[in-house]
């Protein structure tokens, strides 16, 4: 019979508690600051236990379980600590699925706890019973059903360990109601490892040497870095490696802010709406050094014509990512921090100015053909890019920028400049509309001293706008910017480019967003004219507390450059 082995420390006192109280104490042992959640029948004992610990841990009552899990993601992404979520059984649990999938694909550490019907009712189609273990299996790194109170501390310890170690990810623990009520002897021991799981493969020094040899001999080496750098807190090691070797480096969307935007060797963003040079020159480099990134199809475009000329070095913690999409010549398994440190030691000091100039040439072309238009438009209507750039300038690039999914997301990733790490929070892999508003709330709670700006499209805002209620209740000073083009803009752009302008179900007749915000007790304004933009943005930042600014932008602007779906990265289009 399976159990979670609970190692009891010799001599450590135990105390008799309910399983529900054990949940709360275990979370406190793991330094949980916030629990994002929503109560319901099957998790009521846990909520009852929580009532006695409100000074140690703060519960954030969201307005929907999806809001809770996205808020936990925002918190996790800005702190590199696990986000904790509570939900009840049945619909409470199923409402977590989108967030779990999002966190899984973007490697975000979460510990989700769901209540479950009593053990005796499992499998009887009881009220609010759903098999959340099976449902969440493909979208969790690990999950476990607890039916005995004595398994609670061990399961939670294991959950935190798995969520945060190696390649992080979401875990879910489902606890039957009878196990929450029943008494147990409580003691807590943190999990530090178990047999079947090797979170950090040891770095093989021979691989480092082979990689260094390729890099030292390279004429046109090129670094691509992703979120792995942020997750392993390897920002300094990356900077040292890049600066020592003089190699141009481009970031993926998830890697944004891992080094400052204006670093002389940061050449910009990869991918479908990335920068011109970084995409084009992928197919001209001779050694490609991928760090903590997974060659997503939005980055690679057509794989059969992706960097075929290059030797590929892949620094990666997850063995399953090696050779998954791009065949590597040297795979360095391990934590990015350690791998980068060792690699920098073994690489020669170098510079590649002629090669770097190629990026600058492409950058100029992109500026002339795309960026100037976007930042200084001749049209009357505001462009998304100019709005983002102004907000960015007025916050001196210090803010945490949270985005939703679509055109505004691509524009923000392209035009926001970052100075500090963990400043870009977006749904990268899953592309979850509705992510932004709750994620921004979580981010603000995790980084109270920082300005947190939620940039959202008018479509995505309406997917989770109920979280304005949570923002009002917590008074988290999130600055919400709706870029309103009255369209599902990215889908409309594709319809324009690839579906003969057949705008099937993409035009939105929107409600009055300012009235909605005010209805939730949040101050709000709308701005249409360029002349009023700075004033409106300053008013937003000067306001003490949360604020919503609706910015009316051009209805039918497109995001360029663009690597069309199925095209090669060097077929990137500027118009």
């Amino acid at each position, binding site marked *: 019979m*399976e159990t979670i082995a609970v190692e009891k420390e010799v001599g450590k006192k135990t105390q008799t508690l309910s399983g529900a109280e054990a949940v709360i104490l275990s979370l406190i042992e793991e330094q949980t600051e916030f629990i994002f959640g929503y109560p319901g029948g099957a998790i009521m004992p846990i909520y009852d236990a929580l009532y006695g610990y409100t000074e140690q841990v703060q519960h954030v009552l969201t307005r929907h379980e999806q809001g809770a899990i996205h808020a936990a993601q925002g918190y996790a992404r800005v702190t590199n600590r696990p986000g904790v979520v509570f939900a009840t059984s049945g619909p409470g649990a199923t409402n977590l699925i989108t967030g779990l999938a999002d966190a899984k694909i973007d490697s975000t550490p979460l510990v989700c706890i769901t209540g479950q019907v009593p053990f005796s009712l499992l499998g009887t189609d009881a009220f609010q019973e759903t098999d959340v*273990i*099976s449902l969440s*299996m*493909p979208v969790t*790194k*690990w*999950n476990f*059903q607890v039916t005995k109170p004595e398994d609670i501390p061990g399961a939670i310890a294991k959950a935190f360990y*798995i969520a945060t*170690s190696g390649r992080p990810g979401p875990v879910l623990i489902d606890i039957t109601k009878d196990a929450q009520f029943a008494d147990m002897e409580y003691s807590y021991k943190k999990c*530090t*490892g*178990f*047999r*079947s*799981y*090797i*979170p*950090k493969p*040891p*770095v*093989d*020094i021979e691989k480092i040497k082979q990689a260094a040899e390729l890099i030292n001999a390279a004429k046109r080496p090129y670094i691509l870095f992703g979120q792995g750098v942020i997750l392993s807190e390897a920002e300094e090691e990356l900077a040292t490696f890049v600066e020592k070797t003089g190699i141009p480096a481009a970031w993926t969307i998830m890697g944004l802010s891992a080094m400052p935007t204006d670093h002389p060797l940061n050449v910009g963003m990869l991918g479908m709406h990335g920068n011109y040079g970084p995409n084009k020159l992928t197919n001209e480099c001779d050694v490609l050094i991928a760090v903590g990134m997974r060659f997503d199809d939005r980055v690679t475009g057509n794989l059969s014509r992706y960097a075929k000329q290059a030797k590929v070095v892949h620094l990666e913690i*997850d*063995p*399953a990512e*090696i*050779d*998954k999409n791009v065949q590597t010549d040297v795979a360095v398994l391990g*934590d990015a921090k*350690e791998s980068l440190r*060792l690699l920098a030691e073994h690489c020669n000091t170098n510079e590649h100015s002629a090669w770097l100039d190629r990026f600058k040439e492409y950058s100029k072309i992109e500026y002339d053909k795309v960026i100037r238009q976007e930042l200084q438009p001749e049209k009357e209507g505001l462009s998304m890019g100019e709005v983002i750039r102004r907000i960015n300038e007025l916050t001196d690039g210090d803010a945490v920028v949270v985005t939703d999914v679509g055109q505004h997301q691509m524009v923000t990733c392209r035009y926001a400049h970052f100075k500090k790490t963990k400043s870009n929070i977006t749904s990268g892999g899953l592309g979850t509309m509705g992510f932004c508003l709750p994620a921004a709330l979580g981010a603000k709670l995790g980084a109270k001293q920082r300005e947190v700006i939620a940039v959202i499209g008018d479509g995505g805002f309406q997917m989770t706008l109920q979280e304005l209620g949570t923002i009002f209740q917590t008074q988290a000073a999130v600055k919400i910017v709706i870029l309103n083009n009255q369209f599902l803009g990215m889908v409309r752009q594709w319809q324009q480019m690839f579906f003969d302008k057949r705008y099937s179900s993409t035009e939105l007749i929107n409600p009055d967003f300012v009235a909605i915000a005010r209805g939730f007790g949040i101050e709000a304004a709308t701005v249409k004219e360029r002349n009023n933009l700075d004033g409106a943005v300053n008013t937003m930042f000067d306001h003490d507390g949360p604020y919503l600014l609706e910015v009316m932008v051009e209805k039918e602007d497109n995001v360029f450059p663009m690597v069309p779906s199925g095209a090669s990265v060097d077929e990137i289009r500027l118009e």
Partner: protein
Amino acid sequence: MKQIFTIVIFTENKIGLLNRVTSLFTQRHINIESLTTSESEYTGIHRFTVVIHELEDKTFKIVKQIEKQVEVIKAFCFKDDETCYSEIALYKLRLDELSDMKELNQVLEANEAIIKEELGEFLIIEKTGHKEATHQLFEDLKPFGLHGFVRSGRVSLSKTYSTFSQHLQDLETHSKEIITVN
């Protein structure tokens, strides 16, 4: 070119882990030809034997995904010539439909099958071997009037020395988080 692969997975004994592993096949639209699970020679460790008909590249990738699951200890994959493998099949015949026992015995002998059990009205025949052989007997028994047929999943052992026991030993020595600074 697609071919038969036998994937052998050593896992901790956990509820739902089989579901987690099989969903990886579903996600990639890979049909599982056969599946057998049992406790392995190591106490508390289970062995899954999964047979698929797939491309080599796709197979290697799914093996990595399987191994990535935190409670999977190790996964291996083999081509048919790298393992010794077998299946078991049972066949049910009605005694009152058997006019010629002599002919039946000849068929059983030719197929290296045995009569496992004689029940009141039925005869249960057992045959172990590769799928082709158990299928051949199925065809041969059809004229006698088959009233039941079942074939197990493949069981398989590699022809070479298993590296798993060493791997397990290493894991147990280093079950704590390992950070090697060379």
